[in-house]
């Protein structure tokens, strides 16, 4: 029977539940699930909304064999105006557990491209993962987004950072470093050295319930510094960081009572790779280049006050990378990849010149509700 890809409707929900059950039963991976609701909880389509999610399912008779989401949004491209772009997310195929459906992954990706040629995907767990490899075959340009971290409590970091403790010898060394204090000294020294690269000026930060005209002004003042970014005007920010969402904190950073930037902080949900650590994340940020260091410092101080053990962030723009480095953050290996379709890459030309001034953060793509 032919497989047809169509918008996810309420009548598909029982078949999606059955699809999820098959995936989980065969893979044992609790994260291999697609939304059981046809209407997205995060960013449902609404009249006059600049950003929304929509879902599609691959249907074979009465069964669902695959599904994916598109987050439709506006991207600002310097010198080329605003463009509607979509993020391809949560593609799931029966092919993961049943080779007879190996073609479904191809059908999903091609369907998404047909619906929106200006397509991107983000994260994916690294360039060597199947989704990233498939997108590369389809001509997507893969750009790793740098990962930054700052250790607030070295002792806990050394004992709990499971991602670094896989090898027994390394875990032993980390135990010794924690017990003797040499780990504390090494981490704090590296972070202090990093901070010699620059210094933040005066600022004051306040937690705010939402975004208004000041955020619109900041967007308009600073977007000339980025080659491409998802639009962060006040209306879009109010939708992305809704006032009733308590898992994130909105910070406004001021100088002389005037807004110079903003940041979104969150605490990451439990993740085995971080052990028992409380992990804070600077999820998103915006400012003119000369004020980036102040925003990073304000966001860092707010998370430290909350008592996190480790702070992480992903940043692509060279200005923000520098601000994080001068804020005592160290650069680590990144598995967070931005994949741009051929058409989207064309918009980014000249790529070599523009890739370091792309503004991509952890808030882009689909990760916001899942990770915080």
């Amino acid at each position, binding site marked *: 029977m032919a497989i047809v890809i169509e918008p996810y409707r309420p009548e598909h929900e029982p078949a999606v539940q059955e699809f999820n059950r098959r995936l989980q039963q065969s893979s044992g991976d609790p994260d291999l699930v697609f939304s059981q609701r046809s209407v997205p909880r995060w960013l449902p389509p609404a009249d006059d909304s600049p950003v929304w999610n929509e879902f599609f399912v691959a249907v074979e008779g009465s069964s669902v064999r695959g599904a994916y989401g598109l987050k439709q949004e506006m991207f600002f491209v310097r010198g080329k105006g605003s463009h509607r772009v979509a993020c391809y997310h949560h593609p799931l195929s029966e*092919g993961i557990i049943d080779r007879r459906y190996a073609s479904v992954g191809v059908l999903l990706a091609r369907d998404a491209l047909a619906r929106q040629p200006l397509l991107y995907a983000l994260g994916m767990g690294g360039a060597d993962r199947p989704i990233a490899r498939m997108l590369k075959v*389809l001509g997507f340009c893969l750009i790793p987004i740098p990962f930054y971290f700052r250790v607030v409590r070295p002792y806990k970091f050394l004992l709990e950072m499971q991602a670094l403790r896989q090898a027994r010898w390394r875990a032993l060394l980390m135990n010794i470093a924690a017990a003797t204090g040499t780990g504390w000294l090494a981490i704090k020294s590296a972070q202090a050295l990093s901070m010699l690269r620059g210094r933040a000026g005066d600022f004051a930060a306040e937690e705010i319930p939402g975004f208004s005209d000041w955020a619109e002004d900041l967007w308009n003042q600073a977007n000339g510094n980025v080659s491409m970014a998802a639009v962060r005007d006040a209306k879009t920010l109010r939708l992305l960081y809704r006032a009733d969402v308590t898992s994130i904190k909105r910070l406004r950073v001021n100088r002389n009572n005037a807004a110079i930037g903003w940041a979104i902080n969150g605490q990451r949900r439990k993740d085995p790779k971080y052990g028992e650590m409380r992990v804070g994340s600077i999820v998103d940020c915006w400012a003119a280049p000369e004020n980036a260091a102040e925003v990073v410092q304000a966001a860092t101080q707010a998370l430290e006050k909350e008592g996190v053990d480790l702070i992480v962030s992903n940043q692509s723009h060279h200005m923000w990378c520098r601000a994080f480095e001068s804020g005592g953050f160290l650069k680590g290996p990144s598995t967070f990849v931005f994949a741009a379709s051929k058409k989207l890459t064309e918009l980014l030309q000249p790529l070599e010149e523009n890739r370091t001034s792309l503004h991509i953060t952890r808030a882009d793509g689909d990760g916001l509700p899942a990770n915080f």
Partner: protein
Amino acid sequence: MNPAVFDQIRMMASDLFDVPVDRITASSSPETVENWDSVQHLNLVLALEEKFGLQLSPEEIEQMKSIGDTAKLVDSKLQATPR
């Protein structure tokens, strides 16, 4: 099935899936060829499109259940293509 088309597709599959060509038969499928996963399925689609100058629709991609099915599909599309 056109033997020339079948042989070309066998060679292509052998390269893509890293399997000796004599082990690629008409019944070879994702279930029987270890390296035939979704990424390699896409590679096969793109290689067929380039080699034979075809565009495969979603329905046609889904018909590619085995090398034999794929060869039949490509052959029928070539026959239908005005020369």
